């Protein structure tokens, strides 16, 4: 019997079980007690563990993150929530220069087991400063691991792994995925960080997708199947470390690749994956790689522009048809 749980509820369950298991785990961030900020992803945690381990902070991203990092160096295992990735920009110094570097800079004498959760929360006519998907920033940095679950099961299994990991892990969940349901085991379990997964097998082309675009790509694969095209859908799951082997194996099977990522293409995660195809995967390629990403502009505001701006299944379908050599109208 599958046990269906939503992505948001799976996050809350992971947190609940890890806090139960390890008294060093605590939750800190703006809105961890708020009825609206973090969806249902911290539901019930405050009631269970109280304000000592569920710390709602003043509006001070840099310090609240630095405080968590300092406590992580001294035996705690904080989970820091930034209800929007846009606000986490104020904490980048602590994450990038500090947390990511300490292990290396002191030759392994210190570890920073912090889990940072900047949530992507876009759309809804919120305009440019409340819509950004900036995961590539973190993926650029040696010393950080970057996890982006696309399914309810992974929301739980990868969050548990991120909390247990002795390194700083940036765990990026996406509000567009919170309602997605899936079969999620009730007992605690940790997925391995750095392993991609083929969610749907296919032989004509590989769609290598990140985060919510995995869900969109599964829909796209259905639509492609209706047109006689068999698309493999690969969920990247962690963008750093990137599971190059699984991606290349898929490319070896199909010879064609679409990369779907919710960030911009310039220096983005999609560029890294395309570089993989252009390098070690070159011999497998039978067509140029296509990328589905944001247009090269900030997020617009009004509905019709948002509709055109954020990539959806239809954009993936169009890219797949181009890669497959099928002529089709560009998405409107």
């Amino acid at each position, binding site marked *: 019997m599958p046990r269906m749980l939503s992505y948001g509820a799976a996050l809350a369950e992971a947190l609940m079980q890890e806090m139960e298991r390890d008294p060093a785990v605590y939750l800190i961030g703006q809105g961890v007690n708020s009825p609206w*900020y973090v969806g249902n992803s911290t539901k019930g945690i405050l009631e269970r563990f109280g304000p000592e381990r569920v710390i709602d902070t003043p*509006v001070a991203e840099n310090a609240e993150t630095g405080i968590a990092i300092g406590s992580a160096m001294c035996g705690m295992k904080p989970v820091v929530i930034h209800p929007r990735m846009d606000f986490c920009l*104020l904490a980048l110094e602590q994450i990038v220069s500090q947390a990511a570097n300490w292990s290396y800079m002191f030759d392994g004498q210190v570890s920073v087991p912090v889990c940072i959760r900047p949530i992507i929360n876009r759309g*809804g006519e919120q*305009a440019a400063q409340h819509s950004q998907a900036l995961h590539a920033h973190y993926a650029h940095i040696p010393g950080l691991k970057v996890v982006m679950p696309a399914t309810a099961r992974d929301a739980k299994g990868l969050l548990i792994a991120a909390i247990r990991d002795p390194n700083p892990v940036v765990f990026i969940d996406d509000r567009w995925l919170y309602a997605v349901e899936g079969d999620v085991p009730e007992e605690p379990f940790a997925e391995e960080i750095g392993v991609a997964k083929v969610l749907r097998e296919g032989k004509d082309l590989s769609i290598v997708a990140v985060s919510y675009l995995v869900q969109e790509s599964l829909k796209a694969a259905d639509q492609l199947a209706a047109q006689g095209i068999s698309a493999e859908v690969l969920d990247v799951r962690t963008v750093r470390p990137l599971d190059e082997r699984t991606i290349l194996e898929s490319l070896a099977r199909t010879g064609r690749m679409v990369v779907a990522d919710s960030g911009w293409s310039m220096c983005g995660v999609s560029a890294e994956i395309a570089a993989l195809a252009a390098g070690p995967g070159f011999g497998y390629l039978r067509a140029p790689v296509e990328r589905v990403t944001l247009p*090269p502009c900030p997020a*617009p*505001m009004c509905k*019709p522009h948002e509709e055109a701006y954020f990539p959806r299944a239809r954009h993936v379908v169009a890219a797949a048809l181009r890669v497959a050599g099928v002529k089709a109208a560009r998405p409107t």
Partner: protein
Amino acid sequence: MLFHDEMIDPFQACQAFASASAVDADLQVRLYTLMLKCRRAEERAAELAETREVGCPVHLYLGQEAVSAGVCTALKTEDQVFGTHRSHGHFLCKGGGLRPLFAELLGKATGCARGRGGSMHLIDTSCGIPGTTPIVAASIPMAAGAALANKMKKNGLVAVAFFGDGATEEGVFHETMVMAAIWDLPVVFICENNFYASHLPLKDRRKRDNLADAGKPYSIPSARIDGNNVLEVHRYARAAVEHARSGRGPSFLECRTYRWRGHVGPAWEWNLGIRKREEVEEWLARCPIRALEQQLLAQKLMREEDMTALRQKIDEEIEDALAFARQSPYPAMDTLLRHVYVER
């Protein structure tokens, strides 16, 4: 080591004359008109948010109108104000129009940000509104930057940063205070203390109720005032602006007020466990508009029927603005990539 001169406190004189008659009659009527315009426009916007005709996040300023009216009337048109996510009042009081406001709420090409910003990104460069930003505290250094430009250009203009109590928790607030003080920048910091940062009350974010001391460590003159008393706000703002304009540097005002509705959206949020109904009702009873209304009537500066007529006129302007917004087109699809960079 030689430090700077003693701080000159522009607010000492303000305490002296507290009666309404200290503000001239025309100005009192103007303050009333501005506050009423904000109030009615936002009540309409709240309805549109409720029916989802307005889809962007809307942070209502209802209850706080006295701050924007009192401060903006102390400024020249060219003086700059920088606002936040909660800036409908700042926009309207500084001279922004109802039509561009409502069109922006609907994301239309005729909006003040041409449909690129929504409620949180208001702009009118023709009347000293270089833009509002919902990133908490981001308005603060930018206002100081405008003040630096004013100082370098010697144009005699003053910049104002509007921000909330929550914004004082960000590092950039303190960093800006350091520089504004040391460089004597012509900037006025208007902290609208409505006692909440989204769901969190001030008492959960600050050891003591002492926001008005925020300027002290930097020797920035500071005062705590009743942000629901528009005449008091205006008096203090005028002193702060004169202080800045005459080259004496920045100052800081804690304006104590309250937002009636929830953090975002039209809901009252009685039942979310965030604040008690009695607390909201206490503040409703201290409505800044009603308070001035009573004073205007007592001084015979306006009659009941004048007020009714004024309200009708404002409501007509609002309906006109809404009709205009509804008829306006969305930005054309081929403009999506425009203005990422400056286009000449």
